[in-house]
């Protein structure tokens, strides 16, 4: 257990250094903006994959927590002006409490009903955001900017520093989630996904496992929302609208559910696609829809899953060849074991 964790941390460190060096390559702020958006949506999508890919729970209301994060953080900062790290922490706590309440009801339900009830709760919160005008600004969104007092010498009003801060949050968030899925809890969650009945027989509390995953996913999604609200300096009802969840589901599908970094790949792809399509085509839905269809009906799995399966297939083929030469099957068996473990 110890070495992979160390490897992940090193990997994260390198990723952060690369991200930190990126702005040196170009003077345009487009790249900086792009990475901040990637950080917000990437955390959001990866957290959804905790549910979808690892938990087998297709939530169609995950945008609730994204919106919740953006709004709570924005409101806390506008009303109290407390230090940013404290406000973020408080936002995560709020998200965890809401996720506990919503999850306690939802995770009992099966597949499609789970999807619907999560959707229902999301739309419930969406209408509360619209209705509660004095606090949330109604359909105009939370406007007037979010105050960003400096802390520890970090001034988030500066775009460059916000960039570094978002990149750091992204890397830390991903590392934490990576740690969760490779922990014993992560394996329990996968077991519950694959066979809840058997997991129950083995003494695992299926309900509690699912609920824990739901709360964790909600917390990380709200962190994505915090970054987004810092980026746009506000919060809008669309953050908690169903399309947000739809987009996240799409990102997860696009990038792949089996690989941990699949949703990150999906995020980058979708944002590139979005930016490209809006620049080139007038009818953005038509083009985006066609691309999704090609992906869904042609590839039938996410991009990273596809690449991994392809590599896997090549490796087993090479393995089979060398086995034939060596005349032994033991290596292949151990290879299979390894595949089951991942």
């Amino acid at each position: 257990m110890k070495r992979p964790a160390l490897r992940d941390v090193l990997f994260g460190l390198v990723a952060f250094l690369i991200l930190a060096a990126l702005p040196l390559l170009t003077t345009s702020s487009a790249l900086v903006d792009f990475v901040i958006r990637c950080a917000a949506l990437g955390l959001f999508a990866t957290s959804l994959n905790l549910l979808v890919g690892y938990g087998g729970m297709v939530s169609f209301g995950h945008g609730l927590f994204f919106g919740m994060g953006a709004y709570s953080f924005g409101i806390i900062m506008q009303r109290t002006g407390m230090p940013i790290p404290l406000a973020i922490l408080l936002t995560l706590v709020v998200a965890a409490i809401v996720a506990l309440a919503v999850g306690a009801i939802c995770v009992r339900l099966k597949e499609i009903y789970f999807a619907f009830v999560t959707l229902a709760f999301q739309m419930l919160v969406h209408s509360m955001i619209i209705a509660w005008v004095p606090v949330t600004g109604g359909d105009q969104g939370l406007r007037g900017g979010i105050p960003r007092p400096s802390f520890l010498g970090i001034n988030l009003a500066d775009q460059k520093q916000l960039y570094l801060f978002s990149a750091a949050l992204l890397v830390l968030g991903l590392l934490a989630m990576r740690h969760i899925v490779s922990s014993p809890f992560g394996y329990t969650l996968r077991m519950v996904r694959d066979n809840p009945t058997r997991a129950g027989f083995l003494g695992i509390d299926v309900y509690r496992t699912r609920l824990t995953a739901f709360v964790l996913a909600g917390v990380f999604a709200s962190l994505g929302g915090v970054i987004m609200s810092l980026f746009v300096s506000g919060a809008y009802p669309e953050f908690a609208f169903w399309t947000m969840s739809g987009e996240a589901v799409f990102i997860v599908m696009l990038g792949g559910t089996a690989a941990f970094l699949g949703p990150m790949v999906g995020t980058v792809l979708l944002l590139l696609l979005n930016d490209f399509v809006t620049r080139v085509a007038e009818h953005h839905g038509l083009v985006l829809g066609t691309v999704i269809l090609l992906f869904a009906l042609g590839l039938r799995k996410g991009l990273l899953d596809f690449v991994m399966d392809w590599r896997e297939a090549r490796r087993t083929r090479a393995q089979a060849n060398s086995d034939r030469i060596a005349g032994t099957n033991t290596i292949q068996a151990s290879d299979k074991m390894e595949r089951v473990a991942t």
Partner: protein
Amino acid sequence: MDLNALTECLSSTSCMVTQATSGFIIGMLLFLVAVGLTLIFGVMKIVNFTHGAFYMIGAYLAMTVFQATGSYTLALLGAAVGACLFGVVVERFFMQRIYGGNVLMQLLVCYALVLILDDLVRIVWGPEFKSMGMPDAFRVPPLFIMGGVVPPFYLFLIAAALVIAVILGLAISRTRFGKTIRAAAHNPAMVSVLGINTGLLFTGVFALGCLLAGLAGGLAAPVRSLTPGMGFSILIESFIVTVIGGMGSILGALVGAVLIGLIRTFGALGFPLFTEALMYLAMAIVLIVKPSGLFGREAA
């Protein structure tokens, strides 16, 4: 929140009648869309997120035919048949590939189709709000029933939807086609072994669902404004209806639709900004109490 308005209305028959009638027309339109959804889910086990788009296409087709011919009967026919044919195309090219696939894939394909269909409507009919206008036959002064104002078109709409509901109910319970559908909902593999072409049956059920959605669009066109995104709101509401009623249950769709219609109109009085939330609340409560919906069988 405006509870005074609600209690005031509840104590006056005229207001009750007016609100209940508009609740019923919302409910009836919802029923026509929701029953298609529920049939499609019952038989094919897919959650057809594109269903609202067929309602939208029905409404736009009705407007176009009505403006070209001036006949509302033809407009309704055009809406129903057009949406039905369109449904066949969508089913044959896309839906057939996702039967039995995972939920995620189904959601994704439907999401893509909704994006495409909304944009197609935007290209053909333009992005702005359209209105069809009331057919001449219904341009008559409203009726007064127990002091409540009821436009004749509303009565026509409720009657039409009820007739369709009864025909559909009889068709499902009495005819051979209906029996086959029920059998396929229960065990498609067995039905297929018995020599029934399930592929064709699935297309038929999908087309029937689209026909009803298109018809609902045609019926709604005179009283609703038409926009490229109009399919989505009715879709979400009909999902709530099917989930409340129990997915796969036609009676459940009827009860759920009327319930949601009434919640909407009376909720609009008492909680003007919170009406939407009331529907979701109703759905959440039903699911918490009975996870398979009011008339749904326990999912296997």
